[in-house]
């Protein structure tokens, strides 16, 4: 009789067709585990959330999920997001104050996350599936952190180990390097409770692991670093050399948000072109503006991209499977993040995989610097002062024009060690060993 494949229950709210920035880690985890011989069941957020609430759906992403991965989408309550009064229930429609008080009470006393309704539904769905065919391991990725609560409860009820994957931090504000909640907030109690019981917790960089180890020393020995990485199906590592005649294209590829120093970038670009460095160079923005379609127009205005700026083009979102086209059209990549020592971003791996010059536009001390330091085509400005950024952009432009194949090859070779699968391999092996040990 064939040996039973280990079974993984994976709680990942943001999973294709969502186009949220976190789905790539979740997608790679599910695909990699299934390729390594696991039966993987993913519980994701409901379609309505991606269609109507975030408006951030990309059906092309669904095709990139291994067909062997079983995906279910438990329903959720939309208390915090529902704007259609007709959809309110009788209780909320007649007693909105009481309904809000009840919602807040649950946040305070049950689980402190607005996605709590999905967490409860995922718990029920997970149990139902476990009764039919038992799982061996539960992995939950946050945000939302309701998935951590559900994994903890499932673990207690199913008597199976669980792992929490901190794609984002829960109680640490990564951009301000400060606590996210006041000391009496229930999130602290829950995080301690979850980390005390978890078989492991995964963090995207060592600074994040160290911060959590400092806060929860009792769980420090079970904390692992699983870096983000780049997806070979998304980024082509074929080298394209820039046409000498066409103006250079400086590109930012990713989601624009409030936390990025876009003012510094726009000013630096203006300074560089006005000085005649790389005359006619273009600055292109590929990607969404913000994570919510409804706030896109406001954010665009806030970022100063609603008016026409010479040479600056907002090219809009590119479906992930077609993103290689955006990279191919770019000569220099602008790595702009609101970074801190806790922020790596998944984008930096993708940028490195292209083998193109990368110019950093972020505060000093960003966690991504550790990775970029070994990349031979990295250009780091002395500060975020537009003069410094303009100088770094000009140097990166020179490197793109020079187009040295050896340096580009070294750059791509360096990036090869940072694929998603390379990052996930040790964790998958650890999970396999854990399940094998438990089965005796």
């Amino acid at each position: 009789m064939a040996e039973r494949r280990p079974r993984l229950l994976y709680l990942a709210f943001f999973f294709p067709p969502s186009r949220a920035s976190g789905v790539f880690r979740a997608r790679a985890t599910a695909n990699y585990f299934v390729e390594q011989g696991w039966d993987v069941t993913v519980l994701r957020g409901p379609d309505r959330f991606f269609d109507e609430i975030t408006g951030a759906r990309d059906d092309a992403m669904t095709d990139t999920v291994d067909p062997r991965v079983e995906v279910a989408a438990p329903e959720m309550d939309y208390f915090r997001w529902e704007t259609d009064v007709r959809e309110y229930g009788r209780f909320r429609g007649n007693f909105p104050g009481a309904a809000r008080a009840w919602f807040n009470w649950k946040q305070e006393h049950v689980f402190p996350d607005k996605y709590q309704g999905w967490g409860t539904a995922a718990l029920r769905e997970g149990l139902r599936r476990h009764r039919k065919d038992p799982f061996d391991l539960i992995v939950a990725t946050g945000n939302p952190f309701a998935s951590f609560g559900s994994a903890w409860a499932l673990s207690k009820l199913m008597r199976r180990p669980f792992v929490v994957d901190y794609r984002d931090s829960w109680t640490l504000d990564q951009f301000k390097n400060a606590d996210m909640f006041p000391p009496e907030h229930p999130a602290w109690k829950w995080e301690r409770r979850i980390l005390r019981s978890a078989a492991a917790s995964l963090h995207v960089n060592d600074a994040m692991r160290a911060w959590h180890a400092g806060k929860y020393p009792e769980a420090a020995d079970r904390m692992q670093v699983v870096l983000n990485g780049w997806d070979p199906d998304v980024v082509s590592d074929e080298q394209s050399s820039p046409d000498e005649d066409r103006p250079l294209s400086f590109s930012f590829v990713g989601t624009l948000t409030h936390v990025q120093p876009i003012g510094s970038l726009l000013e630096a670009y203006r300074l560089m072109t006005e000085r005649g460095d790389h005359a006619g160079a273009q600055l292109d923005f590929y990607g969404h503006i913000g994570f919510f379609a409804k706030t896109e127009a406001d954010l665009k205005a806030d970022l100063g991209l609603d008016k026409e700026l010479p040479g600056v083009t907002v090219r809009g979102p590119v479906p992930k499977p077609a993103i290689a086209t955006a990279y191919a059209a770019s000569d220099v990549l602008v790595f702009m993040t609101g970074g801190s020592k806790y922020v790596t971003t998944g984008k930096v791996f993708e940028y490195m995989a292209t083998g193109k010059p990368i110019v950093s536009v972020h505060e000093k001390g960003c966690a991504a610097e550790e990775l970029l330091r070994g990349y031979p085509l990295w250009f780091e400005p002395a500060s975020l002062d537009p003069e410094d950024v303009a100088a770094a952009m000009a140097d990166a432009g020179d490197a793109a024009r020079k187009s040295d194949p050896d340096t580009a090859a070294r750059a791509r070779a360096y990036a090869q060690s940072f694929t998603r699968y390379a990052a996930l391999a040790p964790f998958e092996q650890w999970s396999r060993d854990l399940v094998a040990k438990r089965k005796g």
Partner: protein
Amino acid sequence: MDTIERDLTATRREVAVVFKKGVLPRVNAYLREVAPRGVEVTVLVANGPGWRKAEKVDGRAEVLSIGRRENRQPGVWIYMMVVERAPRAVLKRLEHRLPGKAGRAAGRARGIHRKAAAKIRKYVFWPVYRPLRPQALRRIAGRRVEALGLDRVDRVCIVDEGAVPFGWMLANRYPDLEVTRLLDKSRHEDLPVTGPTAAPEVRAPYTRI
């Protein structure tokens, strides 16, 4: 159940329901964006107790008020009369008409009454009335929906939580009517700015219905 037949080629019309004065700055900001684009907005306000110092609604909107009806509810009227208005009026007259010591005593009593009435309002009246107010206003507004001209309206925006019961009633009574919590100016960004962008003089008083 009523149904609404709507002329889709007509000017865009919306109703904003405001039962809480704290959301008026948001409503006015919305009006500043959409009124110059020719969107006609009717604002239904419940400017009853506690609205004396409220911001005025932008003059480009038609404002319908149920504040007087709210003040005439038996519970509200009795509280206002017995605790606030009658003692205030009596003590004011006494202060002005009584000579010497008695007049000064009435003046002191008036000050004490003012403070006591403020405390009673804050700690007794509002804690009791606040949870009942959405239902009370739903009933009052529900009897006057004809004044809103819902047959010509594209959507009703329920701006504050207190207006939700009224909105929920409308949603159930008119199945084709959009009833939303969003004041979404982006819906009208396709319209050119044709009207003046400066707000005209505030219309006062509001139209009582």
